[in-house]
């Protein structure tokens, strides 16, 4: 393409797509301007301030010596390497009363003609020369002395107990001019130990006004300071060594001067301590001795009691034993008597039986005799019987023999009997009866034959006679025998009876004998028992005697012991009363010693130890301004980047779209043989022109408008004479470079990707993106429930992923910015709400003038007389400077000590923020407000160091960290205060609660109070809260800027995206128009997806906003204030609604555009 053709085409394209060009330009301008402007604000603020500081030669160090500087001290300071100047200053805080009677607390600082440091900026008039001339601060709404014109005369005064003439050469001053000072750029004027503790204004008077011998303040400027910019790291670093040196020098100087005093105080204290210790020891020793004696008595008593108890127990034991013995004895005796009775009965029975036995024996003996007689009779009877028997037997024999003989004598007369036979017969008869034989022999002749007969007859007669005799004898014998047998039987019976009787007697004798033995042994046993009993009786009697004797002895002994104890007791009582008397005096002495020691300790604690070396950071105005600048810097590091990013994204899509639209032309050119570069050059040039003109526009306005606006807001708070907004080359180049790079890259990548295709393809209209099913459709139940148009919207949302992302990001950014803005407001508002409603429960406070006598008592009487007050609590509050680590930096805080801790919680709700745990004052330490604890990285248990307005430095343990938003507080109980300072906290005011705050007439109350001389004034929490709310109102601007930026962002993003959307789908839109869709339906057809995307974006934005808000809060917080950490739900709602509003606005504009779409042309265009 020839040059001319190129430019012709270029310009035509440009003209044709003026909106697109302008939109790229605008978004670039917006992004670059915002980025550059916000980024430049921090350096601009710092440059503006530094210019002022340099012009006025603001000191780098301000050194205060509690003892005052000796000339050689100043000389030494000057000799330190790196010191450019060290100038002495006097200062004095006084009350100045103007002719109208208004009293101000003013810090007067000396001014000499040759002073080069901290040069005041003269607003009008001239600087003071004479001792009674003064210049006061002027200009600006910040200061209270502004309305006093030149020539006004002021009367100086000091609190009671001090003589003004001691320190100042003049009592009245004439105002000769008004100044501003680089030392006082903020509202803060510092703290003082007079009046209510705050300085209202500063003034300069001539050095000659001051009568003090020693200089209190030395201002120091370093050599390098001129070359370094305030607030920079380089500046801060260059102070380090010097600060260290100055601190060391101060410690040495003050140490040397106070060494003697310290030693003397210490010695005195030690002496007092040892005296006190001695007195205490003596007292303790006496007490101990007394106690010893007491103990001894107690021991004796106890011993006595123990002994008595023991003896009594023993006696009792003996007695019981004795009783038991006696009882046993009586029992024994009873047993014995019973035994004797039974024995006696036995004995009698025995005797009875013996008698019976003897009788039986006698009877038996008689029986025996009878028996013997019977025996004898029987025996003789027997003998007779036997003889009879023998006769009988002989008779029998004779008979027999006779019979035989007879049998032997034949019956016939025969032969006669031979002689032999007769002989034999005779022998035979002889044998039986010799008489017979004789008789036969004699009368019978064996030879006579008749003889035989005769014999026979004889024999027969003899025989018969014999037989008869025999028979008679035999019968007689038989009778005798039976008689004998009966007699014998009788005898045997008698014999048996006798034998039985004898056995009986014998058994009776045996048992009698046995009984006798038993009786005898029983008797012996009884006798033994009796003997034993008698013995026991003797013993018992002896025991009883012993017992009685023992008891008597014990009583005697006890009485003796008691008497002894009584004596000891008496002695002790005497000793005690003596001791008590001594103790009182000793205690009084110890108390006195203690008070003296406390005084010595207080003096020791209050001895200054060093110079107070302050860098500019210690100046609240200086550091506050630096913090604010840094805060803006922090915002600059996140917000504009965000903004910039979105701008870049918008440019990218726009360029891509443009290239796509011209693809036919690109294809044609490519087909004609133009090089890739030649073709893409057009788009590069387009992007370059659009973005660079945008960037330039952005820089021109941005560098000026943003810093100026923001600094203008800060001008209300800081007295910097002039704010400058120089361009910043680096920032400008960076922003422009980034913008150009982004758009160029976008153009390049878009055109290159288009150029990759072959010309033929390119020349055809890019096929509309083919439809595709989306994931949602897979979820059949859900998909089915959607209406047709909802389905369509859902598909369209996912059809163009890039646009989806862009829209969501853009909208999310918008919502996030809005939420951050609103959240910021919430956080600030939370301060007032929480601080004055939840933490400060009191409704107001009263301050009294402690210089006046009886102020406290009057306060009591006045406040208890006020009917509207519910209750009040006297407090001591003082301004203290809390020391940061080992540096010279301090944080101003209010030390608040109630007169008593009990009802304290009715006025202050001290609690830990997260856990809501209540904090008690009575934990022996200081309760520190949260922000201060954060700044000092303090935790419960750490030690906090602070300095009061009299420059006394104290350290105390931190016992808790309390939720607090506004300024810093230290709370302690009066006891803790006492322990730390060795002073009693005198109240200098009171906090009170009202019965009905709504119905309270504040001004009448104020008037009544001020009628009292001792009361300095009162303040209602409500008005305090209002006041504060007003001062932080300037932050509303930030919120507004954020909202505006968010709106612009939302608009640009949405407009761009919808615009692209419409162009891309113009045929589709024309088609549905042809189908008869009404305008509203057409718009909805397009917007429905935007609504969905806006919804997504908004939700994402709310999440993002919470994070962004937290970040902003963390970076924007100022030292003296803790912002609320939570966003109110209405802010979420507003952000949401505003985003919706922006999106509706864009859609409304787009609706117009959609209406204007011509169906005929649109449908033709692609062909």
């Amino acid at each position, binding site marked *: 393409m020839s040059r001319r053709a190129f430019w012709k085409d270029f310009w035509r394209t440009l003209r044709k797509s003026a909106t697109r060009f302008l939109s790229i330009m605008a978004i670039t301008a917006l992004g670059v301007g915002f980025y550059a402007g916000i980024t430049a604000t921090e350096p601009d603020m710092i440059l503006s301030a530094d210019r002022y500081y340099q012009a006025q030669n603001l000191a780098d160090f301000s050194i205060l010596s509690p003892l005052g500087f000796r000339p050689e001290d100043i000389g030494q300071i000057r000799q330190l390497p790196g010191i450019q100047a060290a100038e002495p200053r006097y200062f004095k805080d006084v009350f100045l009363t103007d002719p109208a009677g208004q009293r101000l607390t003013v810090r007067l600082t000396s001014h000499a003609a040759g002073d080069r440091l901290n040069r005041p900026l003269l607003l009008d008039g001239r600087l003071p020369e004479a001792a009674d001339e003064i210049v006061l601060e002027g200009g600006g709404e910040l200061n209270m002395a502004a309305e006093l014109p030149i020539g006004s005369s002021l009367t100086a005064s000091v609190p009671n107990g001090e003589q003004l003439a001691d320190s100042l050469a003049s009592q009245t001053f004439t105002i000769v001019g008004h100044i501003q000072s680089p030392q006082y750029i903020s509202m803060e004027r510092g703290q003082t130990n007079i009046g209510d503790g705050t300085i209202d204004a500063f003034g300069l008077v001539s050095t000659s006004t001051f009568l003090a011998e020693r200089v209190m303040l030395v201002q120091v400027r370093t050599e390098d300071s001129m070359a370094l910019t305030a607030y920079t790291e380089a500046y801060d670093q260059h102070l380090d060594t010097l600060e260290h040196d100055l601190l060391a020098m101060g410690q040495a100087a003050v140490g040397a001067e106070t060494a003697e005093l310290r030693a003397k105080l210490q010695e005195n204290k030690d002496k007092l301590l040892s005296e006190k210790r001695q007195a205490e020891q003596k007292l303790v020793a006496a007490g101990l001795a007394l106690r010893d004696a007491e103990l001894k008595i107690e021991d004796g008593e106890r011993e006595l009691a123990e002994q008595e108890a023991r003896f009594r127990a023993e006696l009792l034991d003996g007695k019981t034993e004795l009783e038991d013995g006696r009882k046993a004895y009586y029992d024994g005796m009873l047993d014995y008597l019973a035994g004797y009775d039974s024995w006696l009965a036995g004995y009698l029975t025995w005797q009875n039986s013996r008698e019976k036995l003897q009788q039986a024996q006698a009877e038996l003996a008689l029986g025996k005799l009878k028996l013997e007689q019977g025996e004898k009779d029987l025996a003789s009877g027997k003998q007779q019987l036997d003889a009879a028997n023998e006769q009988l037997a002989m008779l029998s024999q004779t008979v027999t023999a006779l019979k035989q003989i007879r049998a032997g004598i034949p019956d016939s007369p025969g032969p006669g009997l031979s002689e032999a036979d007769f002989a034999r017969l005779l022998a035979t008869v002889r044998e039986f009866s010799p008489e017979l034989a004789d008789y036969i022999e004699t009368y019978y002749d064996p030879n006579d034959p008749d003889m035989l007969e005769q014999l026979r007859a004889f024999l027969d007669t003899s025989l018969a006679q014999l037989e008869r005799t025999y028979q008679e004898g035999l019968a007689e014998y038989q009778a005798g025998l039976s008689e004998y047998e009966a007699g014998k039987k009788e005898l045997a019976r008698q014999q048996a009876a006798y034998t039985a009787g004898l056995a009986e007697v014998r058994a009776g004798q045996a048992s009698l004998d046995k009984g006798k033995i038993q009786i005898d042994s029983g008797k012996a046993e009884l006798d033994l028992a009796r003997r034993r009993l008698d013995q026991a009786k003797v013993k018992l009697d002896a025991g009883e005697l012993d017992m009685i004797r023992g008891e008597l002895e014990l009583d005697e002994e006890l009485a003796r012991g008691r008497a002894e104890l009584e004596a000891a007791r008496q002695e002790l009582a005497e000793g005690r009363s003596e001791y008590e008397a001594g103790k009182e005096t000793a205690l009084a002495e110890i108390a006195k010693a203690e008070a003296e020691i406390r005084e010595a300790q207080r003096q020791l604690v209050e001895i200054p130890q060093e110079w107070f070396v302050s860098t500019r950071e210690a100046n609240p105005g200086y550091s506050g301004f630096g913090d604010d600048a840094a805060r803006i810097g922090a915002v600059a590091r996140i917000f504009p980047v965000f903004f910039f990013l979105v701008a870049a994204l918008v440019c990218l899509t726009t360029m891509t779209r443009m290239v796509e639209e011209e693809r036919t032309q690109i294809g044609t050119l490519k087909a004609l043989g133009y090089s890739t570069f030649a073709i893409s050059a057009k788009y590069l040039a387009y992007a370059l022109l659009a973005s660079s003109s945008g960037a330039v526009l952005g820089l021109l306005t941005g560098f000026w408008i943003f810093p100026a606006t923001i600094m203008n807001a800060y001008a209300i708070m800081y007295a910097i004479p002039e704010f400058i907004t120089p361009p910043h080359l680096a920032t400008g180049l960076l922003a422009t470079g980034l913008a150009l790079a982004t758009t160029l890259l976008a153009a390049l990548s878009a055109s290159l990707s288009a150029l990759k295709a072959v010309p033929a393809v390119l020349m055809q209209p890019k*096929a*509309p*993106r*083919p*439809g*595709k099913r989306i994931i949602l459709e897979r979820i059949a139940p859900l998909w089915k429930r959607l209406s*047709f148009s909802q*389905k*369509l919207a859902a*598909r*369209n949302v996912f*059809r163009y992923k890039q646009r989806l992302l862009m829209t969501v990001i853009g909208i999310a950014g918008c919502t996030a910015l809005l939420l951050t803005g609103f959240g910021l407001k919430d956080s600030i508002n939370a301060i007032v709400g929480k601080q004055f409603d939840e933490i400060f429960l009191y409704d107001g406070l009263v301050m009294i003038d402690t210089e006046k006598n009886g102020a406290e008592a009057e306060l009591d009487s006045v406040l208890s007389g006020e009917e509207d007050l519910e209750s009040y609590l006297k407090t001591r509050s003082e301004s203290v400077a809390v020391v940061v680590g080992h540096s010279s930096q301090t944080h101003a805080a209010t030390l608040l000590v109630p007169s008593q801790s009990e009802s304290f919680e009715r006025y202050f709700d001290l609690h830990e923020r997260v856990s809501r745990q209540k904090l008690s004052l009575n934990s022996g330490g200081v309760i520190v407000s949260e922000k201060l604890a954060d700044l000092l990285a303090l935790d419960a248990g750490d030690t906090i160091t602070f300095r009061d307005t009299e420059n006394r430095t104290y350290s105390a343990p931190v016992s808790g960290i309390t939720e607090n938003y506004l300024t810093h507080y230290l709370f302690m109980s009066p006891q803790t205060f006492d322990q730390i300072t060795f002073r009693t906290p005198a109240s200098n005011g009171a906090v009170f609660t009202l019965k009905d705050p709504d119905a309270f007439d504040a001004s009448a109350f104020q008037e009544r109070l001020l009628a009292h001389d001792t009361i300095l004034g009162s303040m209602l929490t409500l008005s305090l809260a209002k006041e504060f709310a007003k001062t932080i109102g300037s932050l509303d601007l930030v919120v507004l800027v954020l909202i505006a930026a968010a709106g612009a962002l939302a608009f640009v993003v949405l407009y761009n995206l919808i615009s692209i959307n419409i162009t891309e789908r113009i*045929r*589709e839109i*024309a*088609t*549905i*128009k*042809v*189908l*008869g*869709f*009404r*305008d509203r*339906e057409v718009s909805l057809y397009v917007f429905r997806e935007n609504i969905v995307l806006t919804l997504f974006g908004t939700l994402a934005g709310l999440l993002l906003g919470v994070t962004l808000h937290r970040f902003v809060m963390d970076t924007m917080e100022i030292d003296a204030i803790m912002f609320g950490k939570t966003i109110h739900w209405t802010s979420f709602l507003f952000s949401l609604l505003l985003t919706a509003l922006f999106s509706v606005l864009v859609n409304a504009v787009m609706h117009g555009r959609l209406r204007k779409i011509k*169906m*005929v042309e649109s*449908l033709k265009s*692609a*062909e």
Partner: protein
Amino acid sequence: MSYIELQDVVKRYKMGEVTIQAVNGVSFSIEKGEFAVVVGASGAGKTTVLNLLGGMDKLDEGTIRVDSETISRYSDKMLTEYRRYDIGFVFQFYNLVQNLTARENVELAAQISRQALDIDEVIAQVGLADRKGNFPAQLSGGEQQRVAIARALAKRPKLLLCDEPTGALDDTTGKAILKLLQDTSRLHGMTVIVITHNSALTAMADRVIRMKNGQVQEQHVNAQPLPVERIEW
């Protein structure tokens, strides 16, 4: 009075200084249920006339009456309603919504119409019953044109206007499409107007309108229109 009547219709286009008379006093009429064909050289003003008749554009002079309604006097809003309920359009390049399936494309038209036909039935009628779930990109040109016709028919319009419906199709497919249109006219008694370059097609029309240079050169009624199959071109 005829069903459709155009009288002295004039349409001009202003292009900077130049004014082009795209349609220069066109008058013709078409009866209800006719299958009319408009032929003429390129640039003769056919499309312009059709657009005017379809309510997509506004005329400068003359009157257009459809079903005794003077639509040439309609406001934009009324024209929208007219298009919505009375007109069916078929374009040379189909103009389907790419992000909708064949069936959904038909549904898009059906859902805004009062007396819409059953969508699936219409699709079946154009022979696409088994392709209705496809996206246009997945269909051939002829199939896409069928979808376009189905979309037009689904609304059950009084008037079906087709601007070179076969222009982008091969002969056979073109014939099939034309047959579909002719059948529609015959079966439903729908008035169909088809623009074409192809004079051969005049044989199948009930009425033929010839245009030239923005004017009606000639118009006649075919006593015996031929079925599409018998036309050769």
